[in-house]
């Protein structure tokens, strides 16, 4: 960027400055480290100048917000128009308890809902399944049937508020519950909005709550894409997620590369089924982590937008909305410390600020107590207030992409893009995303990075305030969320009652229709919806698919 002559002059002047000014300063004040590296092991120079981004053409490589390549944002006026959606991931215990938490959050200014499900639900088991032992409502809410879904959203206007649901293996089934619940209230499919995570590739790679093998899983996902654009047009049918890849220990570059790689894989799978890219692609959404390295995170979001727009264009997308990389962000759970938990508020503030400066569409801020337990009401309120302060007090929302044009940020954005393409090539050489998963490529890459990070922390090469420096010898005393101990009993009673009182003939008929369809090639969404409407449980519906599709098992390597 900039005229060649100007660049030349800058280079000459810089050489002079390095010699006369900088090196002298370093002699007087030696630098704290020999090398400065960010969390992706990229070496960071002491200064960036126009020369570092000389190759960048403003009009074609940076451009304007709302225009290709969307580096500066997908919306022309970003937060000057509408603020991001403040969406706190929440769920614990029974549907009634979580419903109370949703009302609490909405009363305090939250603008979207986000459901955390417990492990049995994530694996498609009813709460009374033997493998659910000990897990009821522990790290999310237990949802076993449409009855639970009705209780979960009691008193919440589904045509006005959007809901994100972190559900993957049984995403189609849980989405059907949400649709059925809305329909029973007289709200049309076209009126509801929200997101299902529905990203199975990152489950195999990082989060590990998968059910079926890759092939039928991809089929189910494409079924939801197709059903979504035809009948539930305001729904994001996938949230292609780097969050969990990062939490499992990856670097920012790995998060970026693996997530966008997964995204391209989904697009290809849908196109292979004969779906037109511009029909489904506008409903694809993304989900990234906001970790500690402030500028690296901002560069990551910006790079993601440009890479995605370019890749989608290559795949033949014509609709501008197909090129938009819209994303949700959550601050990094893995950076929270159990020690001195209050200081997590500061970490979260910086991470959230990075997400906002990176142009996120929605945001979850972690609560200070989450290295110990699920958040208490007070902790989650402070987390929400953190977003409100950034949004309404800090002034960072007054202009679009305020860091665009920073020599460092633009250089780092380019660098992350370059490294991402290197990973794309590696994965391509392994035969694509699914073969690379089956070979354990991503899993090994992540485990390596996680181990290195731990070692560097243990060796104090990376500082964690309160953990390996500035430690306090004190008892951790922070109020912990207490769950209703009767919740599990109520749930088990509710399930028994449901299985007795519903029209079991109809349930069986619908389940066998689903089985037949699963054995064939039809889109399964209408069949799943029929099962759910007749109050088949999550476990029963999932079991049919388990029997037809089989289950995925990963090789245990470390």
């Amino acid at each position, binding site marked *: 960027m900039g005229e060649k002559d100007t660049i030349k002059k800058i280079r000459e002047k810089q050489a002079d400055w390095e010699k006369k000014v900088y090196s002298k300063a370093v002699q007087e004040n030696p630098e704290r480290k020999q090398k400065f590296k960010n969390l992706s092991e990229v070496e960071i120079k002491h200064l960036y100048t126009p020369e570092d981004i000389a190759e960048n053409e403003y009009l074609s490589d940076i451009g304007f917000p709302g225009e290709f390549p969307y580096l500066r944002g997908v919306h022309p006026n970003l937060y000057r128009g509408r603020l991001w959606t403040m969406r706190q991931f929440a769920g614990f215990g029974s549907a009634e308890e979580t419903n109370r938490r949703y009302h609490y959050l909405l009363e305090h200014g939250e603008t979207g809902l986000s459901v955390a499900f417990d*492990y*049995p639900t*994530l*694996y498609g088991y009813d709460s009374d399944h033997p*493998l*659910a*032992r*000990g*897990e009821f409502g*522990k*790290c999310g809410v237990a949802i076993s049937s449409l009855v639970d879904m009705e209780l979960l959203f009691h008193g919440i206007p589904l045509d006005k508020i959007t809901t994100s649901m972190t559900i993957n293996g049984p995403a189609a089934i849980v989405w059907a519950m949400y649709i059925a619940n809305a329909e029973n209230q007289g709200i049309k499919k076209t009126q509801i909005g929200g997101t299902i995570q529905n990203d199975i590739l990152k*489950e195999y790679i990082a*989060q*590990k*709550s998968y059910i079926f093998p890759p092939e039928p899983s991809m089929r189910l996902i494409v079924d939801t894409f197709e059903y979504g654009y035809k009948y539930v047009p305001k729904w994001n049918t996938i949230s292609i997620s780097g969050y969990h890849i990062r*939490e*499992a*220990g990856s670097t920012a570059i790995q998060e970026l590369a693996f997530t966008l790689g997964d995204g391209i894989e989904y697009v290809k799978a849908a196109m292979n089924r004969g779906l037109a890219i511009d029909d489904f692609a506008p409903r694809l959404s993304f989900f990234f982590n906001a970790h500690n390295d402030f500028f690296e995170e901002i560069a990551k979001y910006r790079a993601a937008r440009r890479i995605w727009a370019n890749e989608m264009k290559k795949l033949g997308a014509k609709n501008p909305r197909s090129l938009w990389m819209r994303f949700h962000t959550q601050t990094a759970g*893995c950076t*929270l*410390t*159990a*020690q001195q938990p209050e200081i997590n508020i500061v970490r979260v503030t910086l991470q959230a600020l990075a997400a906002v400066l990176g142009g996120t569409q929605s945001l979850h801020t972690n609560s200070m107590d*989450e*290295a*110990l*337990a*699920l958040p208490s009401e007070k902790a989650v309120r402070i987390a929400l207030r953190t977003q409100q302060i950034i949004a309404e007090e800090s002034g960072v929302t007054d202009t679009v992409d305020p860091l665009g044009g920073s020599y460092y940020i633009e250089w780092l954005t380019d660098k992350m893009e370059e490294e991402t393409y290197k990973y794309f090539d590696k994965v391509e050489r392994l035969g694509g995303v699914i073969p690379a998963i089956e070979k354990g490529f991503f899993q090994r890459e992540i*485990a390596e990075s*996680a*181990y290195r990070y*731990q070692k560097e*922390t*243990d060796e104090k090469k990376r500082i*964690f305030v*309160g*953990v*390996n420096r500035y430690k306090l010898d004190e*008892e*951790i*005393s922070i109020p*912990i969320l207490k769950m209703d101990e009767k919740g599990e009993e109520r749930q088990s009673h509710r399930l028994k009652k449901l299985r007795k009182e519903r029209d079991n003939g109809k349930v069986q008929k619908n389940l066998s229709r689903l089985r037949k369809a699963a054995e064939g090639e039809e889109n399964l969404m209408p069949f799943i919806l029929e099962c759910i409407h007749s109050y088949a449980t999550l476990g029963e519906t999932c079991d049919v698919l388990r029997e037809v599709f089989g289950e995925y098992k*990963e*090789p*245990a*390597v*470390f």
Partner: protein
Amino acid sequence: MVKKIRVLVAKPGLDGHDRGAKIVARALRDAGMEVIYSGLHQTANQIVNTAIQEDVDVVGLSLLSGAHMTLFVDVVTMLKEKQMEDVLVVGGGIIPEEDVPRLKKAGVAAVFGPGTPVDDIVCFIKKNVKR
């Protein structure tokens, strides 16, 4: 030759968070122990059976889902039932401070929370291994 300490690093229940378990497994191996990693989604019964078959000295349980009060206690109880009290059981994960004394009482020798240097775990095992 000194017998190497044999450790089973296990993930009970449905929790898929395996970052910590894998890091600890690798650190223990690097510290000269023989490490068996159970893989994900193990029932207490499966973990105890593996511990017996592999004749381990230590079982390290990792759980971030919050189900530790049930699943850790299940493992310890079953080990006792199989006369395997001499196996050292340690645990880690997202575990509220107030649960720690109850886990210790049940027979979990130590609980390592977030931020624990892996060396602390290595040292604890070397010092407390019973067999």
